[in-house]
C-alpha cells in the first residue's frame, strides 16, 4: 500500500496541493503560474512536503488534475490544426444543430468552429451505417492530401469520417498516409478518440483532442522532467473527467479526457465523504468565487454522462459551446459564486451573475479596485462573514466599501434599503442555485428532498443551509479541508478507463456474436489502459448500453451486468431498459421496438476502502464566544446568532441554529431551522430541527 501520495489540482487562479502521509493530510494553495504551471506545482509540493516533514524523494505517487485543457479550448489557444473529413461533410462542426440558443436575440453570435473552413479538407470516401464501404478510398487521393497537409505548416491533424465508429479502415488508411508524409505530425483519429455514433459530437471531440494535444503532451513531459529532476521518481498519474486515474502517457494521447479533471476530483471527494458518512444519496455543491457546480451522487458513485458541452461562449448558456462526447462526471455549472456581480435589470428586478468579479479585482469589500456589488459584499452586510477573520485575517474586509457599492448601484434602482438590497442579492443567488439543482434532479428523475447536501468550496458553507431550506433537504454535511476538495478527491480515486463504441442494433435482431466481439475488444482496450497505470491488480467491469425506443432521437443509459451475452438475454436487457425508462419518465411504452446505439464499458480498480464513520450524536454544547446579528432568510428577520470557532469544536459538540461557525477560510451559517453536530472526521453535520 502506497503511504505517501500527493494530489495536485491546477485551477485558473490557484493550484491546490493535498499531501497524504500515512493517512494524515497536509494541504496548501499556491497561485497558478499560467506560463509555467509546472513551476507553481513544484513549489506547492515542496511546501506540503515541508509541512509533512518528508523529503521529496519519499513521495510514492503523484496524482494530477488540471483545467489547462478546458482553458485552452475557452481561450482558443492551441495547435494549428487541420481537419480531414468525408466529402460532402466539410461543415458539420460549423452547422452544428442548426439552431439558436437564445430565442429572442436578433444579434446572436454563434461560436466559431475550432478549425476554420479553410483548414477543413475532404476526401471522397464513404462508409455506410453498418460499416460497409459505399465508396472506396482512393490511395492516390489521400497521398496527395497528406502531402498538401505536410506542406501546410500544421502541427496537428484531426481525422473524422462518417460512420467511422462502425468501420475505422478509411480513417486508419488516412492516418497511415499522414504518418508516411510527416512523421512529426500529431494525429488524432475519431474512431480512436471517441468511436460513438453521431458525427457532430464525435468530430468536435477529435478536433478538440487534436487542438490541445501538442501543448498538453509537451506540458506533461515538462512536468514529469521537473519532478524527476527534483528527485520525485514515483509514478505520475492524471485524474480524468470520469473521476478516475490514467497514466500520464494515456493522458497525453487523449487529452480531451482531462476536460473536467479538476471538478471530477471534487465529485470523488464528495462521493467518498458521503460513503464514509453512510449517505446513499448526496447532492454535492462546490461553490467558489465564480461558479457553483452541482452533482448527484448515489451509492458512492457520481452521476456520469457521455457527452459534455465545453467552452460556452455565452456564459453558462446551454447550446453556446461545443458538445464533445467523452466520459464525464455529470455536473451542472452555473454562474453563482462569491464574486458574482449583482445588478438591477430594466424591470427593476435583482439579477445576480453570471458576470463575476472573480478574485481580481474581487468583491468591493476586498478594497482591490472592485466597484460592483457582489455576493460576498451582500454576505458581509448581512453579518454572515467576519470582516476581521476572513481568510485567517489575511484579507481584511471593508464593510463600508460594500455598503457604498450596494447603495450606489442597487438601492435606488431596486427601490430598497441597503440591507434589503443585500438580502435580495443573497436570496436571488440562492434561488438561482436551488432552481438549477432542482432542475437537474428532475432531469435525472430524482426527488431532491431525499438527498443530503455536501457543501464545499469557499462559498458553499455560507449558503448551504438556506439552499437546503429552499430544496426541502433535511441534512447537510460541511467537510473539513473544503477549499482543496478536488486535490483530496484525486487521492481517493480509483484507476479507471471507459471505452465507448457505437454499435447500432435493434434488440429484436440482437446479434450476440457482433456484440460479444465488440465488448471483448472494449474490455481488453480498457484493461490495457488501467494496467498501464495500476499494474496487475484486481479490477471490476461496468457495462452500460445506451438504449431508446425506435423513433426516439436520444438514448438513456442502462446499466447491465458484463458477461458474454446469449440470445436469451434479450429479455433481461429489455427488462433493464424498461426499469430505467420508467424510473426516468414514469412509464414505458408497450409494443414499441427497442434499439441500442452506443455501448460503454468501464474497467476500474477497487476504490480504496472508506472507513465507515460512526455518527457523532450531540453530547456537549459548543463554547459560544459571542452573539451577532444575522439575517435569517426563511424567518425574514434579524436573529441573534451564536458565534463558534470551528477549530475549537470537538466531535460530538453541538450548536443550535441560528449560529455562525467560523474558520479561517469561510463561515458555516446554521440557520434557525437547523442544528449542527461535529462528526468524528471534523465534518459539520447540520440536521433540521424536529418541531
Amino acid at each position, binding site marked *: 500500500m502506497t503511504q505517501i501520495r500527493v494530489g495536485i489540482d491546477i485551477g485558473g487562479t490557484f493550484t491546490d496541493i493535498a499531501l497524504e502521509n500515512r493517512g494524515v493530510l497536509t494541504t496548501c494553495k499556491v497561485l497558478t503560474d499560467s506560463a509555467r504551471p509546472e513551476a507553481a506545482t513544484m513549489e506547492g509540493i515542496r511546501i506540503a512536503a515541508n509541512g509533512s516533514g518528508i523529503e521529496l524523494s519519499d513521495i510514492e505517487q503523484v496524482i494530477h488534475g488540471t483545467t489547462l485543457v478546458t482553458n485552452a479550448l475557452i481561450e482558443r489557444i492551441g495547435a494549428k490544426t487541420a481537419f480531414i473529413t468525408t*466529402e*460532402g*461533410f466539410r461543415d*458539420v462542426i*460549423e*452547422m452544428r444543430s*442548426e*439552431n*439558436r440558443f437564445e*430565442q*429572442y*436575440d*436578433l*444579434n446572436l453570435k*454563434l461560436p466559431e468552429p475550432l478549425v*476554420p*473552413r479553410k483548414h477543413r479538407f475532404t476526401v471522397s470516401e*464513404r462508409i*455506410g*451505417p453498418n460499416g460497409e464501404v*459505399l465508396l472506396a478510398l482512393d490511395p492516390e487521393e489521400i497521398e496527395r492530401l497528406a502531402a498538401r497537409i505536410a506542406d501546410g505548416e500544421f502541427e496537428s491533424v484531426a481525422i473524422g469520417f*462518417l*460512420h467511422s465508429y462502425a468501420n475505422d479502415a478509411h480513417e486508419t488508411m488516412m492516418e497511415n498516409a499522414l504518418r508516411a508524409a510527416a512523421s512529426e505530425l500529431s494525429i488524432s483519429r475519431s474512431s480512436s478518440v471517441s468511436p460513438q*455514433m*453521431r458525427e*457532430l459530437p464525435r468530430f468536435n471531440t477529435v478536433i478538440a483532442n487534436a487542438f490541445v494535444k501538442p501543448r498538453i503532451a509537451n506540458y506533461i513531459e515538462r512536468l514529469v522532467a521537473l519532478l524527476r529532476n527534483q528527485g520525485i521518481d514515483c509514478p505520475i498519474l492524471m485524474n480524468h473527467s470520469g473521476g478516475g486515474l490514467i497514466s500520464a502517457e494515456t493522458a497525453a494521447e487523449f487529452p480531451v479526457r482531462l476536460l473536467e479533471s479538476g471538478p471530477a476530483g471534487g465529485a470523488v471527494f464528495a462521493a467518498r465523504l458521503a460513503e464514509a458518512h453512510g449517505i446513499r444519496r448526496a447532492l454535492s455543491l462546490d461553490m467558489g468565487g465564480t461558479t457553483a457546480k452541482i452533482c448527484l451522487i448515489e451509492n458512492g458513485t457520481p452521476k456520469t454522462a457521455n457527452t459534455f458541452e465545453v467552452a460556452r461562449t455565452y456564459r453558462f448558456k446551454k447550446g453556446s459551446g461545443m458538445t464533445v462526447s467523452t466520459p464525464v462526471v455529470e455536473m451542472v455549472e452555473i454562474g453563482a459564486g462569491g464574486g458574482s456581480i449583482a445588478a438591477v435589470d*430594466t*424591470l*427593476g*428586478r*435583482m439579477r445576480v451573475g453570471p458576470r463575476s468579479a472573480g478574485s481580481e479585482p474581487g468583491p468591493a469589500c476586498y478594497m482591490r479596485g472592485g466597484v460592483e456589488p457582489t455576493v460576498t459584499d451582500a454576505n458581509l452586510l448581512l453579518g454572515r462573514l467576519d470582516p476581521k477573520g476572513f481568510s485567517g485575517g489575511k484579507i481584511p474586509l471593508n464593510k463600508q466599501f460594500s455598503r457604498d457599492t450596494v447603495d450606489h448601484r442597487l438601492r435606488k434602482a431596486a427601490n*430598497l434599503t441597503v*440591507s*434589503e438590497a443585500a*438580502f435580495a442579492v443573497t436570496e*436571488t443567488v440562492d*434561488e438561482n442555485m436551488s*432552481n438549477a439543482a*432542482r432542475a437537474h434532479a*428532475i*432531469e435525472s428523475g430524482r426527488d431532491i428532498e431525499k438527498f443530503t447536501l455536501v457543501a464545499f468550496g469557499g462559498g458553499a458553507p455560507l449558503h448551504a443551509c438556506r439552499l437546503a431550506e*429552499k430544496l*426541502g433537504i433535511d441534512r447537510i454535511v460541511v467537510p473539513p479541508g473544503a477549499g482543496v476538495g478536488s486535490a483530496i478527491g484525486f487521492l481517493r480515486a480509483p484507476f479507471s478507463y471507459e471505452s465507448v463504441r457505437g454499435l*447500432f442494433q435493434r434488440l429484436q435482431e440482437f446479434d450476440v456474436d457482433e456484440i460479444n466481439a465488440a465488448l471483448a475488444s472494449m474490455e481488453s482496450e480498457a484493461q490495457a489502459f488501467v494496467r498501464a497505470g495500476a499494474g496487475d491488480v484486481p479490477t471490476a467491469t461496468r457495462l452500460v448500453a445506451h438504449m431508446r*425506443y*425506435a*423513433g*426516439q*432521437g*436520444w438514448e438513456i443509459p442502462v446499466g447491465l451486468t458484463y458477461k458474454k451475452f446469449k440470445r436469451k438475454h434479450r429479455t433481461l436487457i429489455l427488462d433493464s431498459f424498461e426499469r430505467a425508462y420508467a424510473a426516468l*419518465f414514469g*412509464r414505458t*411504452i*408497450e*409494443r*414499441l421496438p427497442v434499439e441500442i*446505439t452506443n455501448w460503454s464499458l468501464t474497467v476500474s480498480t477497487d476504490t480504496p476502502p472508506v472507513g465507515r464513520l460512526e455518527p457523532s450524536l450531540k453530547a456537549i454544547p459548543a463554547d459560544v464566544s459571542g452573539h451577532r446579528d444575522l439575517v435569517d432568510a*426563511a424567518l*425574514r428577520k*434579524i436573529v441573534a446568532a451564536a458565534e463558534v470557532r470551528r477549530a475549537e469544536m470537538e466531535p460530538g459538540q453541538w450548536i443550535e441554529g441560528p449560529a455562525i461557525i467560523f474558520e479561517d477560510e469561510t463561515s458555516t451559517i446554521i440557520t434557525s431551522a437547523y442544528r449542527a453536530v461535529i462528526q468524528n472526521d471534523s465534518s459539520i453535520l447540520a440536521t433540521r430541527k424536529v418541531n
Partner: protein
Amino acid sequence: MKPASIDYQIMWDRLVAVVEEQATTLVRTAFSTSVREAGDLSAGLFDRKCRMLAQAVTGTPGHVNAMAESVSHFAREIGQRNIFDGDVYVTNDPWQGTGHLHDVTMVTPVFREGRHIGYFACTAHVVDIGGRGFGPDAHEVYEEGLLIPICKFAEKRTVNPLLLRLVRANVRTPDQTVGDLFSLAACNEAGMRRLRAMLDEFGTDEIAGLGDYIIETSRNATRKAISEVPSGTYRNKMQVDGYETPVQLKVTINVAGETLSADFGGTSGMSSLGVNVPEVYTRAYACYALKCAIAPEIPNNAGSLEPFRVTAPKGCILAASRPAPVSVRHVLGHFIPDVVLGALHAAMPGTVPAEGASALWNIQMSARPMNPESGLKAHEILMFNSGGTGARPQSDGLSATAFPSGVSTMSVEATEQVGPITIWRKELRQNSGGSGARRGGLGQIIEIEPRNGYDLWFNAMFDRVDNPARGRAGGKPGSAGAVELTDGTKLRAKGRQFVGNGQRLRLSLPGGGGYGDPHSRDSSAIKDDVEAEYVSMNEARRDYGYKP
C-alpha cells in the same frame, strides 16, 4: 424587514423556473420528434382571471400568444361552477388551441385550501392525430384528423374512459398518442406541486397580488420600450411562393406613444390546402418578431403581450376560418417575422435583419422496397433542415440556422441508422448568402439517395424557390432555393414526388439577404470569405468589386 417586492421578485423567478421545468419534463417524456428536436411544446401558469403569469421559452414562438389566449376559452366553455379540484381539461381545436390538430393543449385548475387560484397549461405536438397524417393535402380540417373539443380529460381525478377510447380508435399510434396525453396531464401536476411548495415557503394562499405585480411590471416595461419607437404608420409587403399560387403577405404597423398595433389587411385569401394559418398563430409569430426587435428582455406574460395588438382580416390566409385545412400552418407562419421586421425597419433603422430563408425545409420521406416481395420493410424518415438567416446591421447572417423557428437538425449518422437512405452531402452552399456590407447567412446543399433495393417518395413543402429573401439597405437578395435530381432534372417545390433507385435528390436551400452596400464590405472580410470558400472569387469580383 423587507417589502413584498423582494418576495415577488423571488417568486417570479421561481414561477419561471417552474414552467421551464414543466417544459423540460415534457420534452423528455413526450414521444414525437417535433417535441424533442423542434421544441414544439409550451408550458405556462395562469391566474384565476386566465391571465398568463409565466411561460417557458421553448423552441417554437408559435405558442407564445396561442397559449396565452387558449386558457380563457377553457374557462368559458367549462364554466366556473364546473371547475373542480382534480380536473384536467383538453382540446386540440386549432382555433382555440395553437393552430393545428397535432397540438394538444391541456389545462389543469389549481386549488389551494379549497379555493380555485389559477391554472397550469401545456401544449405538445403529438405523433399522430389520425386523418391524412401531417401534411398539407387536406381540403378541410375534417380530413386532418380527430378534433377534440374543449372537454374534461379528467373530472375530480377520474379520467374520462370514453375520451381515451375515442382517441385510441382514431389514431395510428394509440399507445404513443394516449401516452402523450398522460404526459401532458402529469407535467401540469408536477407544476402544481412546485407551486404549492412555493406558497408554503412564502406563507401565502394566493397568487393574485403576485400576478398583479408581474403583469404591471411587465406591461409598464413593454410600454416604455414601445414608446421609444418613433410614432407613425409603417407598412411592408412580401411575396412568397405559397402552395398553388404566390401569396402576398402585408402588414401595417401603427405606433402611437405606448401602444402598437399590427394589422395584416391586404394579405392574400385562403388556400384550398393545409397551409392556412389560424389568426391565433399569426398573432404569436407577429408578437415574437415585435418582441425580438423592441423588448427582447421582458418575459412572456399577459402584461408583456397586451401592449401589442395584432389583427388579421377574417378569411385571409393568416386568419383562416373553419373549416379550412391548417395542418402545416407553420410554413407561412415562419414568414410573418420577416414581414413584421421589414415594416419596423423604417421605424427603427439599424435594428432589424434582412429577410432570411425563414421557412424550414423539412422533408418527409417514404422509402419503399422496389420489389414488394423482397421482404424489405418500408420506412418513414423525417429531416429538419434550415437555410441562411438575413444579415444583421452589425454582423453577417447565420448560415444554415433556423429563424424564427428554434428547430434542431438530426445527426446524419443517426438518420441513416434508421432509414434506408444515404445522405451524400449536407454542407454549406457557396455564394448563396446575399451580398452586402454584411453578408446573408449561407443556405446548404443536401443530396439524398435511396439505398439498395429501395425507391424514395418525398413530400416537398419548400418555399423561397421563386421568391428569394430580399436584402436590406442596399444588400442583395440571398439565393433562391432549388429542388432537382443530381442529373439536372428539375422537380417541383411542392407536393409528393419520386426518386428512383440510383437517382439522387438535391435540395439547395435558400440563403439569407445581405445588409448594406456590398462595396462597403470590409475587404479583409471579403478575403476571409473567399479563403473559406463561402464566396467564390468570381462572385467576390462581381458583387463586391473585390481585387485580391
